[in-house]
């Protein structure tokens, strides 16, 4: 292959790899702007991945399948949101619980539904855009659009202003007539739905199969992306691209026969690259950005 087509191929696998981190991070930016943090993103992605492939298997329709990831994500957002917003519960503990639940539920239901242990392939996968260098997912352009729209909504619309107000100063928001609790619940549900979508994208599109390790820390990488994007959806996309290229690059290198023969089991070494990249980026940027003031703190009316 020529150099140009190599770069094209690398870009395509990296862009495809960017999508789940980007979608989950975008949703979380929205939720955290409203004041609710969900460290259960990882678990929501995992159950979304399972439900996406389950719905695809039932309907034989990958569009329905991916959509169902969004729906189940919203359902988990409803649980997490209700606990965080209305029951004034501990958001971190609830998120940990969702992660633990998913860690059990996904391998459990793979066995319960299909009678196989560990992995199940999607009967049909989402269509792809054919390019000269490889197959690009339709979800790459969709993700960019979601990012831009979310930025616009947060910065330029009334809804966005209200969301930011509930995260920065819930008392003032309440005083001007915003229903803080309802808006926070909505933001949590929407954010979690995007994480569920990120999961079903992985199982029905990117990998075309589910394993219990499918998400592999991407939910937490998305959380890191939220922080170093400074809660800006456009920078969130940039952050997810860093992850995408770290992963795409490691996949691309693994195709090199010289490297394969030089290091035994090199795939395991290369699998570490995205995590190292994430650590490097969070270290380089440090804690410079300003956190929404009331993120993680339940609002109790005086």
């Amino acid at each position, binding site marked *: 292959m020529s150099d140009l087509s190599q770069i094209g191929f690398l870009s395509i696998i990296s862009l495809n790899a960017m999508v789940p981190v980007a979608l989950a991070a975008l949703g979380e930016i929205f939720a955290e702007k409203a004041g609710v943090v969900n460290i259960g993103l990882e678990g929501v992605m995992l159950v979304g991945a399972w439900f996406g492939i389950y719905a695809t298997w039932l309907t034989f329709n990958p569009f329905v399948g991916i959509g169902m990831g969004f729906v189940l994500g919203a359902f988990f957002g409803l649980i997490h949101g209700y606990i965080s917003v209305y029951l004034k519960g501990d958001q971190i503990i609830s998120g940990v619980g969702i992660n633990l639940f998913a860690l059990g539920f996904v391998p459990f239901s793979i066995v319960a539904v299909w009678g196989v242990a560990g992995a199940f392939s999607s009967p049909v996968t989402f269509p792809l855009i054919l390019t000269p260098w490889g197959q690009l997912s339709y979800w790459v352009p969709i993700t960019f659009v979601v990012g831009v729209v979310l930025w616009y909504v947060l910065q330029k619309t009334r809804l966005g202003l209200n969301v930011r107000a509930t995260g920065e100063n819930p008392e003032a928001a309440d005083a001007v007539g915003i229903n803080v609790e309802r808006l926070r619940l909505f933001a949590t549900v929407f954010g979690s739905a995007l994480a569920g979508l990120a999961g079903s994208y992985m199982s029905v599109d990117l990998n075309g199969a589910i394993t219990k390790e499918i998400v592999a820390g991407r939910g937490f990488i998305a959380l*890191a992306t939220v922080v170093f994007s400074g809660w800006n959806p456009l920078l969130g996309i940039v952050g997810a691209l860093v992850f995408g290229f770290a992963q795409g690059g490691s996949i691309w290198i693994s195709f090199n026969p010289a490297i394969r023969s030089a290091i035994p089991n090199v795939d395991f070494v290369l699998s570490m690259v995205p995590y190292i990249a994430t650590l490097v980026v969070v270290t380089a940027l440090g804690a410079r950005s300003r956190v929404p003031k009331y993120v993680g703190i339940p609002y109790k009316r005086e």
Partner: protein
Amino acid sequence: MRLSRVFTPAFLSSLTESVFAGAVGFVVGGLVLWVLGYNPLSTFYYLLQGSVGSPTNFSVTLNNAAPLILTAICFAIGLRAGLFNIGAEGQVYVGAAAAVAVAFFSLPVGLHLALSIIVAGAAGALWSLPAFLLKASRGVNEVISTIMLNWLGFYSILWVSLNWLVDPNRSEKTISVPATMRFPDLLGGAGISSAILFSVLIAFGYYGYLWLTPSGYELRAVGLNPDAARFGGIAPKKALLSAFALGGFASGIAGAIQVAGRGPPYAIYTTLGNVQNFGFNGIGVSLIGKNHPVAIILAGIFFGALQAGATNVQLYARVPYEIVQVIEGIIVVAIAAPDILKKIRGLGK
């Protein structure tokens, strides 16, 4: 000690919350089973039978509890210092691999086990250090750094296991640790490993450290109010370092227990299957035990029982054993919202 000093209102409300969360776990877990076409009652029967139904089953419960108590302590000591350290998972892998590495040496009984415990603990503590350094120097949130370290630990220990620690005759596992390095069974012949006794002693040790030493006091002071602690002349970074290192030490030992404390295989499977999820479940154990080293012992036995029953459930009720992980997750979600209980009480009024 007078009973009224133990059963304080705060203690009783903590206990109620934990018991209530446990009940929610079983009710919602039962619903999940019912929806998927299983019989919840027979599942719970086999769960109970598999965990406490016979001395042998109970020994499995205690052997499961031993590493969970230690990973829970890792999380708890972090939380006491104001950290959300979820790095136990990776530290268990690293500790287990370090223990297997010690198995390559020939040493006398006693000394061999002691050395492997210390090396495993040190390896676990070392694996937590980057999280401390990133937090102290760059303010990196430990939730992110410890999870990244967990995955780095996962892939590097997979790699190390397959390349260096692997059993030349059986590639599905690393070499097994020799008899000189194994935890002896307790007397009585039920197969209860002394690892549980060791874990309980460590739990009391951490309790003593946190509540009876100046350094433990400083650690808790930083967790309660870092600004006030700094004003009172306490160095917050020193407290954070203690919390990370002592936490990593406990989870590293949990890894050693998984290879030297119970068999077969007295080794790490090269999928890491027998060292996985202890770190994450330790978080649940700690939360149910309200992050108190002594209550954690009981919570650890509870989770150990669930996991012991899981195999029985799979065998006799034909329910995939991961159902217990589902129940554990629901319990933790319920712990997050103690106010559910108040709402329910409110309904009756």
